[in-house]
């Protein structure tokens, strides 16, 4: 199946460097642990054996921002947590992506008040928003695959311009 059939016995494949790099990025994406509230439970479930996110190349949640390239903000971000979140985001090496998981991280959810950021996009730039309160693991996996689609379409010149 797949690449073996197409290649036959040649053992050589021609493609662009961009494709190879983007493909490898999607298959070794290490998300950073950022469970802030109940969404974190669904994030754990997405990693655990029933849903098994490692099928998509996400074996590891990293506790250190310096080793990760995807930040899953799982939960509401309070005004005091905002600067911490931004600092961790700044410590992640480029290129990096952010998923706002759940309603609270996306738009404040039910917490339209003085203590909570009305969407984590006020603190860090967000690539994908996952709706739900909390989203089911399937929804999170769909969000991650949506990030993959975005990564596969990235161009070197855009990354270099950053």
């Amino acid at each position, binding site marked *: 199946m797949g690449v073996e059939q197409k290649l036959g016995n040649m053992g050589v494949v021609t493609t662009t460097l961009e494709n190879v790099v983007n493909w490898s990025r999607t298959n070794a994406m290490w998300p950073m642990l950022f469970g802030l509230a109940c969404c974190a439970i669904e994030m754990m479930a997405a990693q655990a054996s029933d849903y098994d996110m490692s099928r998509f190349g996400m074996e590891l949640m990293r506790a250190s921002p310096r080793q990760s390239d995807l930040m899953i903000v799982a939960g509401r971000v309070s*005004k*005091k947590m905002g600067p911490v979140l931004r600092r961790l985001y700044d410590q992640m090496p480029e290129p990096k992506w952010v998923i706002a998981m759940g309603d609270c991280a996306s*738009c*404040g959810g039910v917490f*339209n*008040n*003085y*203590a909570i950021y*009305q*969407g984590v*996009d*006020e*603190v*860090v*730039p967000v690539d994908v928003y996952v709706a739900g309160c909390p989203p089911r693991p399937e929804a999170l996996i769909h969000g991650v695959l949506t990030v993959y689609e975005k990564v596969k379409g990235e161009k070197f010149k855009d990354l270099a311009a*950053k």
Partner: protein
Amino acid sequence: MNKNLEPVVKTIQDKFGAGCEEFRDEVHLFVKPEQIVEALTLLRDEQGFELLSAYTAVDYYPSETPRFHLIYQLTSLVKNLSVQVRVAVNGSSPKVPTVTGVYASANWREREIFDMFGIEFEGHPDPRRILMPEDHVGHPLRKDFPLGYEEPQFTFNFDEIDLRKPYVKE
């Protein structure tokens, strides 16, 4: 009123001319702001109310006299009694003497009341905010503090509101 509480109430009434209200067997004593330290000292040392079990405030906006009530809920573990002392304060930036000298646990409670209601405590050893960030403007539990800052977007005003949403710049 619990009959064991009656002598306590009488002492405070005689000494400070305190008002007294009762609601479902809960006794509220009203004293003046300048009397509160003396009243709590007396209750602690002579009446056995060794525990400040709750310390909070209420905002009666738009009423200005009084605007706030400070509420000191005292418990006596020895006598198995509970009494509430209230201080009514006027105006939107009131100052009240601190009671940290009487009950050490009042320290963080007073910081919280200052943070949430903007009542200043004169002589407080550490008068900083405790819950909100240092640079926060306003006092969130006041009735005139706005409830939320997010404007709901509908199809007809989506773009207009989107323009002034505080998105981060990379």
